[in-house]
């Protein structure tokens, strides 16, 4: 009997001690506010293109934080953004929702064919980051360094004079590719590997 009482009281005392530690930790290390929205927003690419059907990246971040929206609606962010948000929230990453667009191969910027521009300012009003310089009846031009490639300006242009062009950084932007570790997955390649040569 005594051993039973001893065992039970030992367990009770242990659980009280650990419960107290947990409670203390919950109060002492409490995180104020909901930093989640800012954290999610920091992961989004800030092109403010609206392809997710929200007027900007912050509203989309809010919607994700509230749980109203899936995390796979951002084409400019692509797979890496989906993965990053999934890691942050501790959920499963989903493939990009095709409804909202597809991930582009390389970053693009808008370029206005200035000969054809009629100075209507419709594209200036459409640009979410004010990257188009111009005024009514004056020439419009895209500030290349500020353009995020969201292509919201293509639609409103009445003379269709805007092109999306891939960015080429040239020599300063070049860097090594990741080495490809060649592992034969087809039986056909085994001969080369057996001789130790790169396939």
């Amino acid at each position, binding site marked *: 009997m005594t051993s039973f009482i001893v065992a039970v009281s030992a367990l009770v005392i242990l659980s009280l001690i650990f419960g107290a530690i947990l409670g203390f930790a919950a109060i002492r290390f409490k995180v104020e506010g909901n930093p989640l929205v800012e954290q999610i927003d920091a992961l989004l690419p800030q092109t403010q293109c609206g392809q997710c059907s929200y007027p900007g990246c912050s509203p989309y971040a809010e919607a994700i934080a509230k749980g109203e929206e899936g995390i796979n609606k951002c084409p400019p962010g692509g797979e890496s953004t989906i993965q990053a948000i999934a890691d942050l929230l501790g959920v499963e990453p989903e493939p990009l929702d095709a409804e909202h667009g597809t991930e582009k191969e390389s970053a693009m910027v808008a370029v206005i064919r200035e000969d054809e521009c009629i100075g209507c300012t419709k594209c200036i009003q459409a640009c979410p980051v004010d990257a188009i310089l111009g005024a009514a009846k004056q020439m419009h031009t895209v500030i290349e360094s500020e353009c995020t490639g969201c292509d919201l300006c293509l639609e409103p242009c009445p003379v269709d004079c805007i092109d999306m062009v891939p960015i080429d950084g040239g020599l300063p932007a070049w860097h090594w590719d*990741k080495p490809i570790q060649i592992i034969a997955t087809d039986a056909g390649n085994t001969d080369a590997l057996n001789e130790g040569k790169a396939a």
Partner: protein
Amino acid sequence: MNTSFNLFDFVGGVHPAENKTQSTQSSISSAGIPEKLVLPLTQHIGAQSKPLVNVGDTVLKGQLIAAAQGFISANLHAPTSGKITAIEDRAIAHQSGLSDLCIEITTDKQDKWIEHSGIANYQDIDASQLISLIQEAGVTGMGGAGFPTHVKVSAKPDAIKTLIINAAECEPYITADDMLMQERANDVISGIQILAHILKPESVLIGIEDNKPKAAEALNLALKESPENTLIEVIVIPTKYPSGGEKQLIQILTGKEVPSGGLPSSLGIVCHNLGTAYAINSAITKGEPLISRITTMTGNACAAPQNYEVLIGTPVKHLLEVSNTDIKNTSRLVMGGPMMGFTIDQIETPIIKASNCIIAATKQELPDPAMEQACIRCGMCTEACPAQLLPQQLYWFSKSSNLEQAESHNIADCIECGACSYVCPSNIPLVQYYRFAKGEIKQATADKLKSDRAKVRFETRLARQEREAAEKVAKRQARAEAAAKKQAQKKAAPAQEASDSKAPPAADIELLQKKFDATKAGVTKTKEKLAILLADENADPEKIELLKGALTKAQTKMKDAAKVMAEAKKAEKASAFTSSDKGDPNTPERLKNKLDLAQSRLETANKRLEEAKAENSDKIEAFETAVTKQLERVNDAKLALETAIKTSATNNVPASVDLETLKQKVLAAQTRVDKANERLNMAKEQNLETVGALQTGLDKQTSKLVDAKAALEQASTEEAK
């Protein structure tokens, strides 16, 4: 000799086979003058130099052909006399194999020097003048990096305590500095003395590896022969790779570590390559700019491996020919040493100021890289790393693109010496992984900066729009109140109500507009995607269904947004209408304008439709709908105009048609026509493309003038009545 000098050591390092004896058997010979010289404009770290010559110019040897742009940049001089035949993109000595802007000189073999003279007693010249002479001579670091030397010697007074001359040449195969010391030790020492005169350090240490006994001897002999020097010491260090790395050499000679991300000058130390000292001597004492360098040509495919004095800009092809290299037997061409050099795949690549070695290797000498196997975590890379990093961890992070962790494990401190890849038993190309990760980190940082800026611009724009909307609201309110007060003087309650039920805050409408635009964009995108899928025969029917459903959803969203917006606008207009000061929009004049506008719009829509039909583009449908819409509008306008004319006719326009205003209108119209005419004539003279548009403009103005004149006549006849 360093009998009493206390040497330190750095952690790690490897001992690859030296392969230096092949190229030290003969003395330095000249590589001669090739047919053409190709001079890249960026042979240094810093801004690209700007060409000062044009195609077709004749240049003399040593003439300045490109000027430095900014402080961190370097001048470029013609290595021999000849004619400038091209300034265009050419393959350059860079591991990417990309091209960059180069000046090509076709040599005339005359080798005619430009007027130049050296300074006999540089000790009498003050340091800043010497520095500008070095800058003018275009001297850059000759050890491999190519940092503009004048920047490195521009230190604050008393800032440098130790000047270190890097004569270690730790990489296998390279013997350029070795032969330079053996044959031209006096010039080298003179150059070092010039440096010492500029920087005024407390001690000057020449660090040389113990595999170069002859060179050390030559240096000591030269030192003995110049007795005024007491500062310079030749310190022999044990041969280990990479003891020639700046940070490692400083650690060996002084025991100090350069702080991460910092410069040796923060420790009061500055390090120059031996070849740079030689170039400084040529620049100051002989007045010769940097136009040639000693390059080792070696490798088993090379029949006569030795060091050559090569003119900057000499294509590697020329050097291969001079040294009798069997290009067919060369399986790999490396510029630099085997540990840190990069491969060249085009033999027209030019030698630049920092090219210290060319290795033409056969397949047995530098075999193809073996298959990368799994990492067994043996830790040999960690033992070899001279920067005390954990290459193994960096490998895991780089491989999985975990850039954050790679950065926090100090991948930026990796000097890419290759010691880790050298020892790896699994043949993992570690350095390439780190280079990849570093490139990705740089890209990601740039992207983050850009996206932060985009966010700031977006938020500023939102703030601006809200501010403008608020201002509009405030203005509207002010006007409404003023009008309401006026009305209140005439009527009592109803006006008050009207101004109370002001427009819904304009900000709402802005928001609704944005939402509408976003939905519209979504609809167009989905439409395009659906069109593509429908055109594709192999498309997945499920996907098509999905997209169709998405399209209907998007369209409903758009319609709803449009509805809400329209209502909001209507409400705003309704409340604004009472205090509108634009006057009655239904006057015949205004309706006539509307009709004209609608008609011109119809014309443009028709034109676009024709174009689209000609091109057979997929927008035909859209344009057809546009045309139909415009047609409707034209008809509506016509109708409205006719009814208005009828009503106004019956109402007997009481407008007190002011004869004066009409006359003024005619005058204004006349001036406009004249101006348009002028512009048109000018355009015709210049044969501009805008002639057509101007003609239409002129016609419009002329018709308006005719109308104005007609109205004036009518009014005057009526008055007369």
